[in-house]
């Protein structure tokens, strides 16, 4: 591949990036708009951010969302990791194909169907809808994403590491806890982050399974938008984008640093060897 800038390359980059990021840029720019009208620029101001922190309903929704996301991501990570372990280690049990299919089905299942089926289930067993039903629903659909991420790491995991641990006196559980988990931890963490973001921005499944007193931020934003968009919404979204972007940035910087360090170490070892 040549790294030259041709006119074709430049044009396609501009169009591609514009297509992806123009809406977001506009959204951010208008969050600093003086005017109440979202479409007319009337000068720079940060008043909507101040307004935001006085809006109790919005802050409540944000708090609910955060709690749901933290809790569901953590539980989904545990369950997803266990599922991934079962899928990679026990390759010969009966019904494995069915199990694999069932673990990964929610990846392609429409959100509406997941939301609706869970709603029907909660109604049928008489479970009061609210914070817990949203959390459970989010665990259900995000754990398969965790399973996929962790499984892809486990495939390349050298199982003799675990055997070596057992050989040196670990019970199978200790071997997992002391050797396997630390080694696959990066994958588990990125699985957790994926589950966390999925939960953070889910609207459809949460709407189906929420009850009184449990409104998540996406639900709140959606219902407010129907009453008319205010720059306040822009401000909330800008903050969300800021949080997510920072997270991604930090993760990639750490990852890159580690890669570079590793390469240097290996070169050094090879030279000394």
């Amino acid at each position: 591949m040549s790294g030259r800038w041709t006119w074709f390359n430049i044009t396609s980059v501009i169009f591609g990036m514009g297509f992806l990021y123009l809406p977001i840029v506009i959204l951010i720019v208008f969050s600093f708009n003086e005017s109440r009208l979202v479409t007319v620029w009337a000068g720079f101001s940060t008043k909507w951010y101040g307004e935001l922190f006085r809006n109790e309903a919005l802050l409540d929704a944000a708090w609910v969302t955060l709690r749901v996301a933290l809790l569901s991501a953590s539980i989904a990570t545990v369950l997803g990791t266990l599922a991934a372990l079962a899928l990679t280690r026990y390759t010969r049990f009966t019904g494995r194909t069915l199990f694999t299919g069932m673990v990964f089905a929610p990846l392609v299942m429409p959100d509406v169907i997941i939301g609706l089926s869970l709603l029907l289930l909660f109604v049928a067993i008489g479970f009061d809808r609210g914070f817990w039903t949203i959390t459970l629903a989010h665990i259900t659909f995000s754990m398969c994403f965790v399973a996929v991420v962790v499984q892809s790491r486990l495939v390349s995991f050298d199982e003799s590491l675990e055997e070596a641990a057992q050989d040196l006196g670990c019970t199978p559980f200790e071997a997992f806890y002391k050797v396997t988990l630390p080694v696959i931890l990066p994958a588990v963490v990125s699985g957790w982050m994926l589950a966390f973001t999925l939960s953070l921005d889910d609207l459809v499944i949460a709407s189906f399974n929420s009850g009184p007193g449990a409104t998540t931020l996406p639900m709140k934003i959606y219902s407010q938008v129907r009453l008319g968009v205010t720059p306040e919404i822009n401000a909330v979204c800008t903050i969300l984008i800021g949080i997510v972007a920072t997270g991604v940035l930090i993760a990639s910087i750490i990852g890159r640093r580690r890669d570079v360090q590793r390469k240097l170490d290996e070169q050094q070892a090879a030279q000394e060897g």
Partner: protein
Amino acid sequence: MKSLGNVRRSFAPWTDPKSVPYIRFENVTKKFGDFTAVDNLSLDIFEREFFSLLGPSGCGKTTLLRMLAGFEDPSEGDIFLDGQSLKGVAPHNRPVNMMFQSYALFPHMSVEQNIAFGLKQAKMNKAEIEDRVQQMLKLVKLEKFAKRKPHQLSGGQRQRVALARSVAKRPKLLLLDEPLGALDKKLREETQFELMDLQQELGLTFVIVTHDQDEAMTMSDRIAVMDAGVVKQIGTPAEIYEAPDSRYVADFIGSVNIFEGKVKENANGLVKLDSPDGFSEIQAVEDRQFETGQDLFLAIRPEKMNLTRERPTEANAASGEVWEIAYMGDVTNYIVKLDGGKMVRASVVNRKRSVENPIGYDEVIWVSFEPDGGTLLDR
């Protein structure tokens, strides 16, 4: 008395009927589904022995080792360690340590932590662990690398960390799965001697799995040659090399010429074979009795063959044409096409730097060997 090869050290408990084996495989069979990896195998290994399991890949040698470590259970039969049955004993409860083919170093731990892992698991106290780790680092000459992570080490260094980790707990039995497979030739030869010294120094029993016959010959007290789940022959390196008891073993270890013939005469410890391979007759010194007319094979190593331009006085001689010459430095290998069409290998040791008028391509020469140069095989 004549002996096969040199006796390396006076250690041979297997010849003493009173000695008790340290490890005993008793009619062990291991099946994976329909595939039989180990087939009704019995084997004794003695304390402080350096024992090699040698065979091609898929012959069951690694399965045997994994059954000793506890990662596989025998489908039938039982394994005894120091008189105790190993049935149902989990790997972490066995007084056995293993060095893995992939080394299996814990990537998230430093060299020190890797070596200390088993000691911590055994709940040794801190000062003692510290001491033992230092001792191990010294043993494998890695003192300067204690704080490094495995990916910061070269292949040879990783191999030594793996070794240090597996002997740190002072197991009475150390299992080694192709321990030198990933090293280059020179490093491998050095490490072979290091392993032997280590085994002597610590007084351990070593069971090593390898497909490399040179490795097995160099290091072992005894070798078990395996094929398709069964042991073909057990013996000292010299016995395996000089007195193989089947064509499989003769062929697997080193290179060999095999002549086929019918017994013509069998008297006074001398067997005479009718041979169609270009020899008018083959004579072999032999204690066993064979029936006249029985089909036998004579296995003879290339270095026991003589090449001459004149017809030799030896009994076993045939003429042929030089087909191929390979100069290896220490020896020169010839392939000679006998008049009967059979290809024969002969090695000539290059004892002088230059030879006047060496045997060259396309020359017609004589191949001969002494009657006690080879082994008669009936299978």
